[in-house]
């Protein structure tokens, strides 16, 4: 058993004082940093964290028409979602939208970036043309395409006429509408994706290509064995971003089809919008919004966990 001597008592007191000084020091540092962090933290609390918690609470309550919570319903809305044909349809539509747009964007931007990376005179002008959609919003893109899709006056059907193909009711035929809504999205995101891929391609050292050339590799061989593997991090980034963006799609659908015809383009966010904005089902819509959050979170984790292992980081 330790005996308390004068010395140990003194040491303990010193230690305590030191601890106190350290704590005061920590607090002083915190007080110095707080004014710099507080503005952002306040905005995040009010518009991100608090609403997330309120969403969870809201999803377990029945509400009145202006969104005030009336009575607790537990997980009723979540159970109802599993049986709601509208909601299940919106999930399926969104999944198909992802399948159209994500490979579409990646493929188009791979081709454009490969072309834009060629060393030719005047290539800068082509790169600007490829990146032009960066400046264009979802709403204006949708308006531009609405005219392109016009049944009688639009250039798309005219081109089909020229090819002696039957005309298509782009936005009014349930079989075509989702595809038609996907095209402006692919067009818009291709600009951004091309810029990202070009940045990746330009980061590759010239020595690699020169060495390959000496070894007799042609364009395709260098592309397949040098360019492609080395831009996989950019491609991976784009895969994540375009998938998440596809899940958040709203603008094009709202302008071009309002979810129709017969819910053929009713994506998840548009279904959420319909539930709370038009039908006043705040709790039910909150449950849908939270499921969207979970799906996106899970997808991000899967993509980072599974695919990133196969990605080559230079």
């Amino acid at each position, binding site marked *: 058993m330790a005996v308390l001597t004068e010395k140990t008592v003194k040491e303990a007191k010193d230690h305590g004082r030191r601890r106190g000084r350290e704590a005061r020091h*920590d607090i002083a*540092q*915190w007080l*110095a*940093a707080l004014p*710099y*962090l507080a*503005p*952002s*933290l306040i*905005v*995040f609390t009010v*518009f*991100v964290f*608090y*609403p*997330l918690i309120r969403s969870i609470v*809201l999803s377990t309550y029945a509400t009145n028409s202006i*969104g005030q919570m009336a009575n607790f319903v537990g997980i009723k809305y979540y159970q109802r979602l599993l049986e709601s044909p509208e909601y299940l349809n919106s999930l399926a539509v969104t999944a198909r939208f992802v399948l159209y747009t994500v490979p579409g964007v990646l493929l188009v931007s791979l*081709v454009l970036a490969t*072309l834009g990376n*060629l060393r*030719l005179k005047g290539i800068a002008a*082509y790169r*600007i*043309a*490829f990146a032009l959609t*960066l*400046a*264009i*919003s*979802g*709403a*204006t*893109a949708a*308006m531009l395409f*609405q*005219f*392109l899709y016009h049944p*009688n*006056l639009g250039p798309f059907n005219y081109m089909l006429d020229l090819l002696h193909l039957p005309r298509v009711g782009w936005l009014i035929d349930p079989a075509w509408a989702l595809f038609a809504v996907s095209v402006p999205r692919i*067009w818009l995101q291709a*600009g*951004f994706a091309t*810029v*990202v891929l070009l*940045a990746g391609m330009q*980061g590759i050292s010239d020595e690699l290509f020169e060495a390959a050339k000496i070894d007799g590799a042609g364009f395709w061989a260098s592309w397949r064995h040098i360019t492609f593997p080395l831009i996989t991090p*950019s491609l991976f*980034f784009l895969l994540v971003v375009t998938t*998440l963006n596809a899940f*958040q799609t709203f*603008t094009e659908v*709202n302008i071009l089809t309002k979810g129709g015809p017969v819910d053929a383009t009713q994506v998840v*966010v548009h279904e*959420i919008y319909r539930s709370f904005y038009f039908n006043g089902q705040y709790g039910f819509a*909150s449950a849908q*919004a939270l499921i*969207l959050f979970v799906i996106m979170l899970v997808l*991000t984790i899967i993509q980072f966990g599974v695919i990133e292992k196969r990605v080559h980081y230079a």
Partner: protein
Amino acid sequence: MSKPTHLRKTAGRVLLYLLLTVAAIIMIYPLYNGVVTSFLSPSNVDTYPPKLFPIEFYVQNYADALQQAPLVRFVMNSFIQSSGVMMAQLVMASLAAFAFAFLPFKGKQLVFLVFLSTMMIPWESTIIPNYLFIQGIQWDDTYMGLIAPFMASAFATFLIRQSFMSLPRDLYDAATIDGCSNLRYLVTIAVPLARPALGTLAVYSFLQTYNQYLWPLLITNKVEMRTVQIGITMLRDAEREMWAVIMAGVVLVMIPTLVLFFIANRQLIRGLTAGALKG
């Protein structure tokens, strides 16, 4: 060089230019078609076949577009919203980035994670409480309602922090030893040196906000408070669809962002790729 290989090289080059040109035409075509249509007189726009090339320069459509919807007001609303968000983000991100880059404090990692987590929460999943909140404090149909939710941004903070961290640490130490306060160091030294990153953020956040759709759609009801992306659809909802007038309106509201794209191309691209290049 022997003649056949020379010829083959030229042919290959021509083919590449051909491919490039076709690709460029496809990417520009939707915009091009909008511009061509916006200059067609009513008799030409409503007749088959569609005009693929500019055949006339009928400017009246632009005057009609400005008359049919208060487009100038819409553009002004969007400018106020976008400038407000941009300035708030510049200030708030610089402040937070300063704390992360220069100030020592316990739990920095944790606070950083808190910032990071805001990027994992999609805006759409919290939009209902935000909508109810803004309505509750009667900020619907106000500029504050349009600006407030976007004033802070984790992405903006990281962008500026990255730039601050590239400044020599000795500079900060020397300045503070000489009695320079933190705030003074931030305002007079760090911010001027981080101008490129701040420029990137300014262009990026302005453009993102100008192009917003869902949030302004939810919280603006009065026509005079509509932002441009919502307002532009009003042209279409007229009794009879006048496609040349609609396209004129679309072209008009795109001009600010197209100008921004051409004068600040570098900043914009740097901002957009910042997330892609390891950060």
